[in-house]
């Protein structure tokens, strides 16, 4: 259980550091230029 506690502290530390610097390895919604055509229609089937 001590190992798991250390793991949790590490995870929260990494999460806080990433939040502090606003870093995300994935980004949320960022896309490249000139890809605006998403098909022009609903996803509804």
């Amino acid at each position, binding site marked *: *259980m001590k190992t*798991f*506690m250390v*793991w*949790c*502290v590490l*995870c*929260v530390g990494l*999460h*806080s550091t*990433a*939040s*502090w*610097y*606003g*870093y*995300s*390895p*994935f*980004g*949320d*919604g*960022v*896309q*490249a*230029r*000139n*890809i*605006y*055509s*998403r*098909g*022009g*229609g*609903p*996803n*509804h089937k």
Partner: protein
Amino acid sequence: MNAPAGTPVAATKALQCPSCGAPFELHAAGYSTLHMCQFCGSEIDLTNDDTRLIKQHVDAAKALFIPLGTKGTLNGVEWVCVGNIDKTDGWDQWEEFLLFNPYHGYRWLIWQANGWSIGTPILKQVANPRESSFRYEGARMKRIYDPAESKIERAIGEFYWQVKKGDRGKSTSYVGGGKVLSCEITGDEFNWTLEEIVNSKAIATAFGIEDTGQYPQIGEYPQPHQPNPHGDGFKTSGLIAAIAFACAMLVSIFLSFEGESYSQSFTANPTGTARSFDVGTFTMTGRSKPVTITARGEPGDNNWMYLEYTLTNTATDEEIIASQPIEYYYGRDWKEDDRRGTVKLSSVPAGTYKLTAEVLLPEDEARGSAGATQRSTTWGVSGAQRARSVTVLVTSNGTFNSHFFVLFLALFGPVIWIGMRAASFETARQSGYDGADDDDD
């Protein structure tokens, strides 16, 4: 059977088997009424001063886990092993060692294929052993083994009742509160025993014998009252993970109050060509921060527009590109409403930035290709004929949902794994119960 406090210490008495001549000692002289010779199995009556052979046997001597006469201390009480019984119900086989202490009476040390238990005889009727469950000392006891006939295959040593090889009776067991209540049914007589698990290492240490092991080292499934080694770990790790996750959320909420906000509205005219507008110029100081761009627009019914952002560092002319679709589709019984969208830019360094947004409409795509023209015509004719508005808000803060997703996996993944191990232990335990096969059907 429990001896009252203050009972005088039983005398040890040296005797000789009238059948095979082997010497033996009585460890509970005055309490025991029968001795079964451990070398030949003959039954010797101890109710009179002169030992009398009841029945002669010629069984071969057997090496016991705990030799008769061995002393050992369990839970602070010194016990001497005075008897041993081998039992079987035709399916399982187990051994019961009778322990004696003149101040505490008798206990049963029960060895099964998956570990040890110590049983305390209960001198009152606990319940009707035909009931499938009942409450005992605050715990709900549930029947795990239906009444089944068991037979004594061998008995050696001293006993406080008349017992012999071949004796039959029924037995049933209940589990609850981490203990087992077993009931021996002989005719109209019910003998209850409360069993508590004892670690095999504790037995080995107490009686100076080799560690016989316990589940999972031996046996196909755990004992009914064996503590789940992962049960506490699951609860504790779940609590720790939940606290850690809450702490991470508090940090994110705290950081979300930082930063500045700028907003700008714009109306895109489908017939015009000016589709680009400035949202604003702002300065970010200090450490790198996320930038959140939120757009809300009215693309028209069953139509779309697309926002392409360019965040330019005015000092270095470095650009960060992002884009956001604004869509609104609906049918008779469905709707896809994406008229509000958010884009988050990761770790934007300090500096002065200018944010511009370009609005792209179906008409622009229509000009790009023949196929796109068809889509534009199909989905956007009516909506494309009117101007469409959009409002963009930019803030120099934000939290990433992906952070929480990754953090959740990192924190609760191990908890789920521990929980699966705990569940696997319980499944293995219950597979040994009567009716387990029925439950599977």
